[in-house]
């Protein structure tokens, strides 16, 4: 008797059984479960739902209020993050960048360290890292616990429930909205989470479009642009609300892009039937606020921050080197920015932004510090800063630098926000996509499709804005 013999025998025996015998197999298990449960569980009214859950569901999945609450909650999370992070960010900036940097620089100069070493370590590595801490830690320390509280409460499946029809229409799997929510933390995590989708076709759609869920590395870019360019368009009293609103608009555009791209894919290269799915709406659970804040701070925030730091330190060094290694009378950075400038102009951006995105392929977190540093050293107005120093400035000053030295306009800011939402995933995510799909073709698609979309959208907007005379 061999293995094949066993299989042959199995199919022979199967042919003798009634075709629906497997139903009996499942049913008998549930019968046993039911019998045991009835003997073990006593409840006042076992089938009755707790009244509070019912009331909550009635409100949170209501025709009108469901969407109002959904919008208000997400807007509230962003607004709270933007408003709450401003003061601690400023404090950390003064501590780490203002005082810390000059103190460390003084220490290096006093000990007689060579200029290049001081530059590379203090102006490159230290400043890059300090910047990331100052800018990223406060918003993340607010955003993640808030988001986790919503998650622990059991709210997120209700969002998926409310929006399911939209996903069904675009040929996507109902659980794609859950993987998108993971993507709001980190796209690599979102891509891994697509394993909950059984159908390979729908899973690929979810993987390719996860990029349009704005990950934590990109929130700071959006928040900064929203704050200094969009928020400043209105009176100061409304600035915070409008800034938060602009970030929410971009996030919503991300959702719309996800749906449109999903629709496109499911009607072209990934055609097929929508598969069966079921979504469990778990009971609401009172979140344990302090424990949640503690674990999400320790777990998500510090984990993400550590990754950002690991990326920021070498990036700081790279930027310093690019700005200080001179070839033919100009720095490497100047050559690269000059080369990228025409493309940047077409997209309503500039060479510096594009170079920053190349440097930031490993981590989106360092886009803004790179842009700031390069703008201050290469911009038309010199700010008297030493070459290659990665800098942060309070928001108002950052705006001044970008406008005066970088020649930024509202178009640059808007297109940067859109580019940030659309462009290719970071290298970690690309690697994760490869691990999950094991397909060069789909990895390339998931990388290049967003990039092409980013170029197309920003290019069209730039052209239209210029034709209309807005920019």
């Amino acid at each position: 008797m061999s293995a094949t013999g066993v299989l042959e025998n199995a199919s022979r025996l199967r042919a003798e059984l009634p075709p629906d015998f497997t139903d009996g197999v499942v049913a008998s298990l549930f019968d046993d479960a039911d019998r045991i449960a009835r003997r073990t569980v006593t409840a006042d009214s076992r089938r009755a739902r707790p009244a509070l859950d019912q009331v909550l569901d009635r409100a949170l999945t209501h025709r009108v209020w469901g969407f109002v609450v959904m919008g208000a909650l997400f807007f509230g999370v962003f607004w709270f993050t933007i408003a709450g992070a401003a003061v601690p960010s400023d404090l950390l900036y003064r501590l780490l960048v203002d005082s810390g940097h000059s103190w460390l620089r003084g220490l290096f100069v006093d000990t007689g360290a060579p200029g290049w070493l001081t530059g590379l370590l203090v102006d490159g590595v230290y400043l890059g890292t300090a910047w990331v801490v100052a800018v990223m830690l406060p918003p993340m320390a607010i955003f993640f616990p808030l988001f986790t509280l919503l998650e622990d409460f059991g709210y997120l499946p209700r969002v998926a429930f409310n929006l399911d029809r939209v996903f069904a229409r675009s040929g996507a799997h109902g659980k794609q909205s859950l993987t998108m929510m993971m993507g709001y933390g980190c796209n690599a995590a979102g891509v891994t989470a697509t394993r909950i989708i059984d159908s390979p076709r729908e899973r690929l759609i979810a993987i390719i479009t996860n990029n349009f869920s704005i990950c934590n590395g990109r929130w700071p870019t959006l928040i900064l642009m929203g704050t200094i360019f969009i928020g400043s368009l209105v009176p100061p009293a409304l600035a915070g609300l409008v800034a938060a609103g602009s970030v929410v608009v971009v996030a919503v555009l991300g959702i719309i892009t996800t749906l449109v791209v999903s629709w496109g894919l499911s009607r072209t290269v990934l055609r097929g039937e929508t598969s069966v799915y079921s979504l469990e709406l778990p009971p609401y659970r009172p979140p344990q606020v302090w424990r949640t804040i503690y674990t999400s701070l320790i777990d998500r925030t510090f984990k993400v921050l550590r990754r950002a730091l690991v990326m920021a330190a070498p990036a700081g060094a790279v930027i310093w080197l690019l700005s200080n290694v001179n070839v033919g009378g100009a720095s490497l950075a100047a050559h690269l920015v000059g080369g990228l400038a025409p493309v940047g102009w077409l997209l309503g951006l500039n060479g510096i932004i594009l170079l920053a995105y190349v440097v930031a392929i490993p981590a989106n977190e360092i886009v803004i510090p790179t842009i700031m540093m390069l703008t201050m050293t290469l911009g038309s107005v010199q700010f008297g800063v030493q070459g290659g120093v990665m800098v942060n400035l309070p928001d108002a000053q950052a705006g001044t630098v970008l406008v005066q030295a970088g020649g930024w306009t509202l178009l640059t800011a808007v297109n940067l926000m859109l580019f940030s939402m659309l462009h290719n995933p970071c290298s970690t995510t690309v690697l994760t996509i490869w691990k999950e799909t094991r397909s060069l073709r789909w990895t390339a698609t998931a990388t290049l499709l967003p990039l092409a979309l980013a170029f197309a959208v920003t290019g069209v907007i730039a052209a239209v804005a210029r034709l209309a005379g807005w920019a």
Partner: protein
Amino acid sequence: MNADLPLPVSRTSAELDTSGGGSCGSCALNNVANLEKLGLHSGRHDFVVALAGNPNTGKSTVFNALTGLRQHVGNWPGTTVSRAEGAYRHQGHAYQVVDLPGTYSLLSTSNDEDTARDFLLFGDPDVTVVVVDATRLERNLNLVLQILQITDRVVVALNLMDEAQRHGITVDARHLARELGVPVAPMSARRGHGIPELLDSVAQVARGGTAPRARVRQRLAPAVERAVDALAEQLVAEFPGLANSRWVALRLLEGDVSTERAVRDGTLGDVGRQHASRRDLVTAGQATS
């Protein structure tokens, strides 16, 4: 009104902890002191513990409570999609904990369910802890019963006892243990209640202290029963030492693709050999002691 019922089974360590100087209270504390969370410890381990359960039962919370890791826990299905591993030390033994994806069943074929099932079947864990939601026992028992068909080295972690209490639900854990034939540990993992009792149960099963006897045997239609018997007999002949031949036989009858693959590529044979060698070890151990 449930609080008035002095049911011993609904006593989680919640009550034990607050009971103060009671003898059992202190023993629970001693046991907690015995727990050394090893995090991502990858060294030598004495036992492998698999953590299974339906989605949304607090499985990851139990995992974190045991290992001291902080895997993110979300109140929605699918938070754990891949296997997470951690470790702890308890009463001098090192345990490796494998957190499996939450599944409703082991019978369907999806990526996450395959991961869970393959590990239970081919990873051959020493103990499988099935985390169940005390507020929805009936539905959760379906998975417990399926797992009991694969292995009887099972501990049921009756989690979310605090939620059950909030909803006016009482679960007779002692009766449940009798029905299932395996230890049942009532707990509220989020509050850290009941962990010591779970650790003790796991240790007992791992060391073979309590001989768990799965008492539930699936009742099948007579024709199916005969076919399963015939095929199981063949399987044991072909793969000596295969512990769960009836389960494998039933899957083959259903035409389950991944089980067919395991038969064809010999994975099943490896499992059989592992079982056989473990039995030899146990016998040898008994002979020397």
